[in-house]
């Protein structure tokens, strides 16, 4: 069973809507309270990034399956300016990555899988997955 739903991000309130959607899905899939909070935080960071740097974009939440495990996939996409230096954005502990534990390195840590595709002037798509343990 594949399930998919999405929230468009235009305003800060859409961040809250994306969080709510993600938390509901995570709960439904059987993630524990702490993991629910982590998934929600990851969504929050991704949506915030769209809101701050691309202006508008979309968060898609999908329930996924691999072998015997179930997971949740978050796809954050925008048609913004793209990320000029991915290495810098993924680097730890510097203001460029959003400061203390936040930003993209944070999303990667909160989730199990993380992938980023960005092209200047075309946009950015970030996919993050967490599996139920």
């Amino acid at each position: 069973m594949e399930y998919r739903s999405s929230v468009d991000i235009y305003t800060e309130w859409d961040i809250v809507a994306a969080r709510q959607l993600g938390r509901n899905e995570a709960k439904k899939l059987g993630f524990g309270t702490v993991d629910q909070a982590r998934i929600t935080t990851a969504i929050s960071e991704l949506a915030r990034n769209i809101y701050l740097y691309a202006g508008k974009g979309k968060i898609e939440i999908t329930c996924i399956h691999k072998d015997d495990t179930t997971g949740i996939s978050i796809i954050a996409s925008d048609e913004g300016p793209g990320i000029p230096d991915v290495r810098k954005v993924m680097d730890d502990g510097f203001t460029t990555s959003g400061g203390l534990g936040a930003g993209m390195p944070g999303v990667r840590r909160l989730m199990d899988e993380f992938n980023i595709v960005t092209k200047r002037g075309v946009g950015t798509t970030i996919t993050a997955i967490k599996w139920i343990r």
Partner: protein
Amino acid sequence: MPQEIEKHYKEILKQYIQDQNEKDLYSGQKFSRQFIEKEISPEEVIGIHKASLKELFPEASDKLWHSFDFLIEMMIHYGLALQEHQSLIRKQEEMEMEMKIAAQVQNTLLKTKVPNFPCLDIGFLTIPAKQMSGDYIYFLNDDPNNASVAVADVIGKGIPAALCMSMIKYGMDSMQYESASPGIVLEIVNRIVEDSIDDSMFISMFYGMYNAENSAFSYASAGHEPALLYRAAEGEFVELDADGLLLGIDRAVHYEERSVQLEKGDFVAIMTDGVTETRTESGFIDEGLIRDLLESVKDKPAQEMADTVYQHLGELQNFQLHDDFTIVIFKKEDK
């Protein structure tokens, strides 16, 4: 201020307990980021949480509050680790700044002047893999007829390698007015290196000297990558190599000296292993690639030739160099 924070915390918490709205969790989390920035430790957060609950649940049993005291105790070391982190970030940023300055100092210290010969077109390029380079190019123009170049690579990268480079530079400086031949230069530099650095550091060096009168290119090598000579008439490459140990192993090494004649359109490309052993995701590059690249631009100016090689090999590795990348081209022109 802590009082205001406590008040604000209690309000959001109260809101959330009432209607479990996602909005409150979002505000709470945004608030928690400010906490971290203000260096409020997790045990303090638990302290604030406990105080807020005490007002919200005045009837709760003492046991509950004891459980919070326990939780505070559990959080202390988390708080310490966080403070340590903040200090480490500062240290790290300082270090980055220091490396940046050091790289500038290195550049100024090691600057070298390119000989200007009417019959010889010189191109060169050196790109460090980290901030500081362990590759080094030194030009010598000690005699109006001789244009010489030393290309060196310290085994190892980063700061330790950079320190060694400065020694090479002063070794070379001391020979500025001696018109020594390639084998002799390597012998002298070898002794300086052997005297000054410890046994774990080695340096490879290629020394080449072009004489404008007889168009001879004589060279010697201290365990360095062979240079490539392109024969324009035959359209073929020849490797230029000569016997000689790495610098800094043995004080008494003799360096073989060889010589070739350059004709119009011939060029010599001296490189470090950062070029020849370019690593891509699928392994090392094919040996022929560099030759093909060089041949494809053989009619361009020497600098453009060097730039092209870097452009192509850099792209293959997403410009994330594994080793310092250095190339020098001596190309014989029409007189």
